[in-house]
């Protein structure tokens, strides 16, 4: 194992993040605050409680998930797409590194960045609402798994993408809608029964439900299913990456 290479990729990516620290951190903080103003204050004043939790607190896990998923995906996809785009990928291909090391480097950095952003949103939220965390260990586990799995997904997108439009396509057309419709701002039990069934095909529902359970002890779907869902998703991403590197798909002719 070339740990030096993992370290080099990880630090290089993190350095990019810290160089643009203000925009990396200010923007999630501002958008989270805006969500609180719009959803927490404006709508929350009309909805007292959801499942025994104040609406303002209820949306916190969904808000964190929303940012973490989009940030992990876009960071990892950009991280590996950029060297392809400007041609510096030749270095990765001609260095004594294998796909596991490259993946750990980029996915690790993207997951770390999104984790930092998730924690900052959590702290920001603490200024607006009273938060209790019922199952801290499960909360951390869900958060970590989400960071990692969506960074893996982003990595795949970055390798697949042939141009910047494609790079934005999946996050925009798939992830954002799934997250918004995944119960970030509402409990799916609030939906008409037919829509509840449709929603169960949205994988994000399981993540947000499990994550919210870790906070408040209430869930839309059983926690075990949430855990299985995220594990399967992570496994699928890993398998896809393994296949990509094994075949050299889109990277090495």
């Amino acid at each position, binding site marked *: 194992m070339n740990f030096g*290479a993992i370290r080099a990729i990880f630090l290089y990516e993190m350095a990019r993040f810290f160089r643009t620290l203000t925009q990396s951190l200010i923007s999630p903080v501002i958008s989270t605050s805006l969500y609180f103003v719009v959803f927490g204050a404006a709508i929350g004043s009309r909805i007292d409680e959801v499942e025994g939790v104040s609406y303002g607190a209820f949306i916190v896990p969904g808000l964190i998930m929303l940012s973490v998923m989009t940030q992990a995906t876009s960071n990892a996809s950009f991280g590996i797409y950029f060297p392809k785009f400007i*041609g510096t990928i030749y*270095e990765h291909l001609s260095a004594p*590194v294998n796909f596991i090391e490259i993946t750990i480097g980029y996915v690790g950095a993207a997951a770390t960045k999104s984790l930092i952003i998730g924690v900052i949103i959590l702290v920001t939220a603490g200024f607006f609402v009273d938060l209790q965390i019922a199952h801290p260990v499960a909360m951390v586990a869900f958060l970590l798994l989400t960071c990692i799995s969506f960074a893996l997904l982003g990595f795949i997108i970055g390798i697949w993408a042939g141009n910047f439009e494609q790079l934005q396509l999946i996050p925009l057309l798939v992830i954002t809608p799934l997250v918004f419709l995944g119960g970030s701002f509402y409990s799916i039990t609030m939906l008409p029964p037919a829509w509840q069934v449709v929603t169960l095909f949205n994988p994000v529902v399981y993540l947000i439900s499990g994550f919210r359970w870790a906070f408040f002890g209430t869930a839309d779907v059983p926690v075990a299913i949430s855990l299985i869902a995220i594990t399967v998703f992570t496994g699928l991403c890993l398998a896809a990456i393994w296949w990509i590197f094994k075949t050299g798909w889109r990277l*090495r*002719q």
Partner: protein
Amino acid sequence: MPAIVKVTDLTKRYNDGFEALKGVNLEIEEGEIIALLGPNGAGKTTLISTICGITMPTSGTITVGGYDTVTKYREARAQIGLVPQELNLEPFETPMRTTRFSRGLFGKPPNDAYLKEVLTELSLGDKLDAGIRTLSGGMKRRVLIAKALSHEPRVLFLDEPTAGVDVELRKEMWAVVDKLRANGTTIILTTHYIEEAEAIADRIAVINKGEILLVERKDELMRQMGQKVLRIELTAPIAEIPEALAAYGLSLGEDGCMLDYTYDVTGERTGITRLLGDLAGAGLKMRDLHTKQSSLEEIFVGLVKEGA
């Protein structure tokens, strides 16, 4: 001495079916500078890319420092530094940061002192922390060289280091290569400029359409270039070269009317006067005489045309 880079029966077929390398054999000795000379599209970049691991060989084997580049890729690649043809650099990085990254990618422990030394050797000492986007083309090329040298390789590949560069910069690059060789680094460079191969290489390999047409020491090529051919046209064809003229190493043209005599212009005597005397003595009558000189250019063009 065993070859530091050994390419055996290498073929490369791209996904679109195009065969860019058609059975290349090449041995490179440690410490030498070898120029891969060939026109655009000859397969130079493909050959380098396949040795360095950017593309996979279709068939054949490559070893670097005795290690197979596919099965022992870590050991093989650890010995290679690659300077690509394009100026592939991140505009918002700095020479120091980007060389640090390259060194790390090769699993080497950080060593900023060494990296500074390399960058300074390449006249980038005052640009260590400058934005790469602010550097000139020649400086960017040298940043790429520093990146390639960052992990202290034994073999350095330079893909068209002076393509599209003015004379001044080309001379500067040659000086850089000279310096590197003095440190004992083996250098493989590709070029489509004959003068470049002539100026810095120890050996020259001519490549065209995916095939190596010739590998020769430069001084041997130069010696051939120092040779002139005297062509003697006879009035009547002869079946074979007379016994009396055997010592001249003449070659007889197909029609029997043409005799070629090769001589060295750098030698003290050319032997022409004596040859002409002996020709008359053998009873041969001349219609015409002319001489031609071969140059590397001519050898090159001839080879490339033959392949066409």
